């Protein structure tokens, strides 16, 4: 069955179809929740909440957006609710208290590049955690989930201009965070060489 058929079947009460959707998205939803909450137990809980919200709200899903976009929005909402609840309880996660967030995968082929990417990945994890909820949310939707600007606008009920400027501001803050930590100096030249083609 295609995703659309699965959604339709789930809307008619077919639990097996919904289960298939959950299995298809569990990793992505968990990843988004983990990067938002910075805690694996909380992310597991938030992911369940997101899927349950989807199940409860299936009858309201109009299919004018994609199921994934809708699901990521529910995940993001559940994560923000969790973070606010935690903040109200006076419990915050410090930047050094994120053992649960795994190091990003190392896609680079050479050991040197792998080491560079690992360092950058760790710095990016810290940088993301330092961003505001709004900036972290929008950047994760763009980078981790690969949503287009239009899809993000739909998911977050923002206009396209706001999406563009918020992503730009989030990246700029992240860039400054890395710059202040001296995280660019070591490997940027080699990466610069690789990105020349994108310029202009």
């Amino acid at each position, binding site marked *: 069955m295609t995703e659309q058929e699965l959604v339709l079947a789930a809307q008619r*009460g077919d*639990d097996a179809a*919904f*289960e298939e959707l*959950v*299995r298809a998205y*569990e*990793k*992505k*939803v*968990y*990843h988004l929740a*983990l990067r938002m909450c910075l805690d*694996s*137990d909380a*992310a*597991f809980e938030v*992911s*369940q909440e997101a*899927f*349950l*919200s989807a*199940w*409860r*709200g299936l*009858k*309201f899903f109009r299919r004018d957006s994609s199921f994934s976009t809708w699901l990521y929005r*529910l995940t993001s*909402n559940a994560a923000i609710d969790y973070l606010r609840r935690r903040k109200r309880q006076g419990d915050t996660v410090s930047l050094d208290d994120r053992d649960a967030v*795994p190091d*990003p*995968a190392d*896609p680079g082929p050479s050991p040197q590049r792998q080491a560079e*990417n690992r360092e*950058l*990945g760790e710095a*990016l994890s810290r940088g993301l955690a330092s961003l505001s909820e709004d900036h972290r949310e929008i*950047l994760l939707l*763009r*980078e*981790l989930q*690969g949503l287009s*600007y239009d899809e993000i606008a739909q998911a977050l009920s923002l206009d396209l201009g706001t999406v*563009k*400027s918020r*992503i*730009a*501001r989030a*990246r*700029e803050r992240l*860039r400054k965070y*890395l710059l202040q930590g001296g995280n*660019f100096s070591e490997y*940027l030249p080699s*990466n*610069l060489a690789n*990105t020349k083609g*994108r*310029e*202009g």
Partner: protein
Amino acid sequence: MTADCSEYTPLLSAAADGVLSPEEQSRLADHLACCPACRERYAQTLLIHETLSAWEAPEPPGDLTAAVMARIRSERAVRRKRRRCAAALAACFTLLLFSARLLPPMGKGSSDAVSADTGGAAEYNEAALYDSAAEGAAPSATPELREAEPKEPEQVLQGASTFFNAPQTGGGADAETDKAAADAPAVVTLSSSDPELLSWMTSNISPEARCSQDEDAWLITADEYQALNAHIEEAAIDCEMEWGSFFTAAAVPEENQAIEEEKEMICVIYLQAGEPEETPEEVPAPPEPEP
């Protein structure tokens, strides 16, 4: 990098995503050609984008799908149980209404007859229901209730609520029925065209509180009601709120709201999304007896 360079920040980010228009692309290219600082900024932005988008999703710690499906099954079981309870309550209430209609009009004559003849089984039992609800069984309660003018259907319903709500004090019929009305589950009907209201209900109100899959109606607690109210205020949701009583299906005065909001209560909420022109659905109160 100069102060003017900040205006290129959105373009640098959009360029990393490859979503620049041809005009923006050529503007940025012109600037990058003469600004080494922005060239470096672009390279850094692009590096952030490429690194983040290459991150692979980790495996959840445990079987997330199984955990979700277990919770769904559990929620469904609770919903079924709730629906059975609601159906049983509705059936009891209908039965009580039916019994009330079989009784003769509660005028002075019948009151005297009952006082004289305690063998009037149906009337006695009905009186006993009201009496047993009053702590200390204040002897004056039943006669006073019976001395009232023949009841309109709505008044009969209010009287019936004493059976369910067991008022803890005796006293006059009016005081008793007023208290019963105050104790009865309130009905609040929310009409709004803002879909946010519906989506908030779905996400925040405990799903087992939903009356059925097909109705935008929830049985909610006082805490949930307060959270709903806070959200309506915070999100400036435009909605109309009308209060009623589960037992009378009629609007109740404003002052009763305070009483209802203070105590543990159950509300039935109806929401409308996107179709403000439609009349709100009727509250699922039991049918009123025909005159």
